[in-house]
């Protein structure tokens, strides 16, 4: 029998980023005994790196903003593949969630009349992002971290124990979810302390997954070592489904030089505040890349674009602020066509557009980052930037209202959940997503636990199996070359970067799948040196299992989707296809392989948008995305059809 430390909770939140912390606050406020488990120290989760801001239609800067406008922007950004109910809840609830943070002590930047200031960002019609300079994520994390402390102080006052109802288990990695044998419902989570390597078991009827993204499967990424897709893979192994895995966001502006910082993010706030993209000829090339679906919504000349920064009523926004997928593809083409910067990116110029003081005040961490890491003074010179793997739209399939997955007791929120952002996420919509759905997941878990008449049971055999899987890398196989986990990881990253990256083709994806299969066989031979105490080699070996599953899900779904949409660009199928708009690709695990189960992908029809939401859009705009059949439900469809016929008639004449 495996030696494990045991804990009993009502809900275990896996992840201490924005989503996890918000879920934990909610669960604790609902009276549940709550544990928060995270791989890093408390307060270091990925959310800390978010720079630009948190989208919420508070209308503080432009009073025309409201949830409907935000909803429409979100759906457009995701090319109408989004789960519309999630997008609706998100747009409606984001302002309350941001205001709530002020009651926890957050200090956002202010407008002249003392409200929360809001900035422009790609794809958002109005200035909408609540921010603190360019360190908004830090403010979110710290605020919620401090809120958790304040709840613990309440518990201390009452019970003499800070951790009576809410405890953080930092530097503790969950490697497996456990389910009840008879009902298939969640019964607990198994993991290890990074410090000692000792095993730990949480017995709990509800788990909220809030583990973030998958970027570490790619070579060039803005993501940290934590982003190994654990939540995605653990959920798969517990019987949950993932959707939208083919959609991976490449942020258009990552650093490209020096090599060691390649991929580190340059916030979109640079462009939101006036920075522009230029090629090696000094041309503002984005004007050449406004796609048909956005024609008419963006400025057509640099003059108009520049006027827009100060007068948004009478001018259209700059195409530098198109949704990220469009900008990333544009940069990719410029570089391919030989108009790139010396280190294979393009130029992002803020120096010539703003005073040095202004830049340092508005973008202090960007100034710092370039100065310290690249010897570039962004108040004097342009930055060199290029696409970097940034965010995964795909994730655990959940019920929009309760955040519950198909596995009873398993909830998910934040980047590891899927649906909200469709095929492409707008900047700033993640931080708000974390707050809205973090809270909903906490609520969902509380309701679920309240409704249980029996606690699901953890099987000792499952615990033993999880321990055995975790220890495999210490137990070298009898034959075959031993594998170094670091080398295997690099090979995986190279494969995904080269073959399932920003621009994809069928034969390349097939090649990637072959390589993945090959790499998977090497996975069995991974051997780690040393012992279990704080051993990064071992930790990586465990994370690799998850990266392989997630990578296979991305590649298989990418192969199946024969169209280009948002964060999925197929060179061999460059167009949007209305039939694909209503189709979701659902990934689940097969049980062929205990170490790294395979992935099965199935099509599923997307639920049609509720009529009142559907009617928020102009039928003409919808016609760029929807099938004729679907459009017929729109009240203005007849007039559109008539116009179409008239035009067709004209052409013939």
């Amino acid at each position, binding site marked *: 029998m495996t030696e494990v430390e045991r804990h009993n909770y009502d809900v275990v939140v896996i992840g201490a980023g924005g989503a996890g912390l918000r879920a934990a606050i909610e669960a604790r406020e609902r009276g549940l005994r709550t544990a928060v488990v995270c791989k*890093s*120290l408390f307060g*270091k989760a*990925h959310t*800390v*790196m978010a720079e630009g801001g948190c989208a919420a239609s*508070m209308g503080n800067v432009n009073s025309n903003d409201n949830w409907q406008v935000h909803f429409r922007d979100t759906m457009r950004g995701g090319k109408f593949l989004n789960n519309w109910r999630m997008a609706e809840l998100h747009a409606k609830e984001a302002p*309350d969630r941001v*205001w*709530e943070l*002020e*009651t*926890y*002590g957050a*200090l*956002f*930047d*202010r407008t*002249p*009349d*003392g*409200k929360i200031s809001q900035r422009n960002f790609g794809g958002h019609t109005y200035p909408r992002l609540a921010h*603190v*300079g360019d*360190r908004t994520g*830090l*403010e979110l994390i*710290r605020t919620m971290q*401090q809120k958790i*402390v*304040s709840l*613990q*102080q309440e518990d201390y006052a009452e019970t003499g124990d800070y951790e009576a109802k809410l405890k953080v288990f930092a530097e503790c990695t969950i490697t497996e979810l456990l389910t009840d044998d008879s009902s298939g419902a969640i019964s607990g989570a198994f993991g290890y302390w990074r*410090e000692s390597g000792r095993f730990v078991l949480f017995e709990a009827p509800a788990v909220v997954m809030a583990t973030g993204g998958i970027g570490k499967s790619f070579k060039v990424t803005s993501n*940290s*070592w934590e982003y190994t897709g654990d939540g995605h893979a653990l959920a798969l192994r517990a019987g949950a489904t993932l959707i939208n895995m083919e959609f991976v966001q490449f942020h258009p502006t990552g650093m490209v030089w*020096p*090599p*060691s*910082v390649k991929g*580190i*993010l340059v916030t979109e706030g640079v462009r939101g505040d006036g920075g522009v993209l230029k090629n090696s000829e000094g041309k503002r090339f984005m004007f050449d890349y406004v796609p048909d679906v956005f024609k008419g919504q963006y400025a057509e000349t640099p003059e108009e674009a520049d006027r827009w920064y100060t007068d948004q009523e009478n001018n259209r926004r700059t195409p530098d602020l198109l949704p990220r997928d469009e900008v990333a593809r544009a940069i990719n083409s410029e570089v391919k066509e030989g108009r790139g910067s010396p280190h294979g990116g393009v130029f992002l110029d803020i120096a010539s557009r703003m005073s040095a003081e202004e830049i340092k005040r508005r973008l202090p*961490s960007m100034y*710092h*980052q370039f100065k*310290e*890491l*690249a010897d570039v003074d962004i108040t004097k010179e342009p930055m060199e930037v290029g696409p970097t793997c940034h965010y995964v739209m795909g994730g655990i399939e959940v019920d929009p209202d309760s955040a519950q997955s198909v596995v009873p007791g398993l909830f998910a929120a934040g980047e590891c959940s899927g649906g909200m952002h469709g095929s492409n996420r707008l900047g700033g919509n993640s931080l708000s997503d974390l707050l809205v759905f973090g809270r909903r997941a906490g609520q969902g878990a509380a309701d679920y636990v309240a409704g249980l008449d029996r606690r699901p049971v953890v099987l000792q055999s499952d615990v033993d199996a999880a321990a055995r899987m975790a220890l495999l890398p210490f137990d070298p196989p009898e034959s075959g070359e031993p594998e*170094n986990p*670091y080398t295997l990881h*690099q090979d995986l990253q190279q494969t995904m970067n080269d073959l399932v990256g920003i621009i994809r083709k069928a034969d390349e994806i097939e090649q990637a799948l072959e390589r993945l299969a090959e790499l998977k066989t090497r996975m069995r031979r991974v051997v*780690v*040196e*040393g*012992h279990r*105490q*704080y*051993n*990064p*080699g071992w930790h990586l070996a465990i994370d690799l299992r998850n990266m392989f599953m997630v990578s296979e899900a991305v590649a298989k779904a990418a192969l199946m989707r024969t169209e280009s949409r948002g964060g999925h660009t197929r060179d061999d199928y460059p167009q949007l296809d209305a039939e694909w708009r209503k189709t979701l690709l659902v990934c689940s695990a097969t049980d062929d392989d205990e170490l790294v189960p395979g992935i099965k992908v199935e099509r599923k029809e997307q639920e049609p948008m509720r009529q009142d939401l559907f009617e928020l859009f102009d039928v003409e705009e919808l016609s760029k995305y929807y099938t004729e059949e679907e459009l017929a439900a729109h009240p203005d469809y007849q007039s559109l059809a008539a116009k179409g016929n008239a035009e067709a008639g004209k052409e013939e004449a």
Partner: protein
Amino acid sequence: MSYIGQFRVWRGDSNGGSLEDFEVEVNEGEVILDVIHRLQATQAPDLAVRWNCKAGKCGSCSAEINGKPRLMCMTRMSTFSEGETITITPMRAFTVVRDLVTDVSYNYEKARQVPSFQPPEGLAPGEYRMQQVDVERSQEFRKCIECFLCQNTCHVVRDHEENKPAFSGPRFLMRIAELEMHPLDTADRRDMAQDEHGLGYCNITKCCTEVCPEGIHITDNALIPMKERVAGRRYDPVVWLGNKLFRRNRS
């Protein structure tokens, strides 16, 4: 442009350890953390180190480089000469867990002892109004990435483990200042700063400010004003009286 650099890295755990010599490739533009990662990938796969963002944003990768408290991800190799041996050791004020990883739980305990933000009663969410100039003072302190380098550097605890129970360190004295300067906070933490968090131990040497990677003026903007507020409260009879009356009115 690549060269082989000489490194001495402390390896061991709470039972002891020693500096080990390594030769590692160094490429253009790299930082110390890149070298540590290369060391892990090629020679010492179990070398323990904390890091996350690799961009000076999360405050995980604190260590001492040639004896200077620094973030490994923000220390560029170009600041050293090629022939120089670079020594990397864990933060000294905290117990070692393993290699470059230290036990920083002291900081989380201290954080928990600072009473949280207390909003004014009856102010609904969405109704908060504050001027930019008024939030800026606290905002400076909220830039803190909790790297704990200042905590590690302050002489009050650096070599005086025995002071830890009575002294919360610059980071958390600054947290108290941040709340005190929050335009809408209603609690009073001045006595507590002195009596429970050891503000009096600080003799404004500014060593904490010097190592702060965020460039926060910890001493000038947080600690000294905090000392002034405490002094004002203790010795100013008007403040004293005002407080007494205010308390009486409330109860």
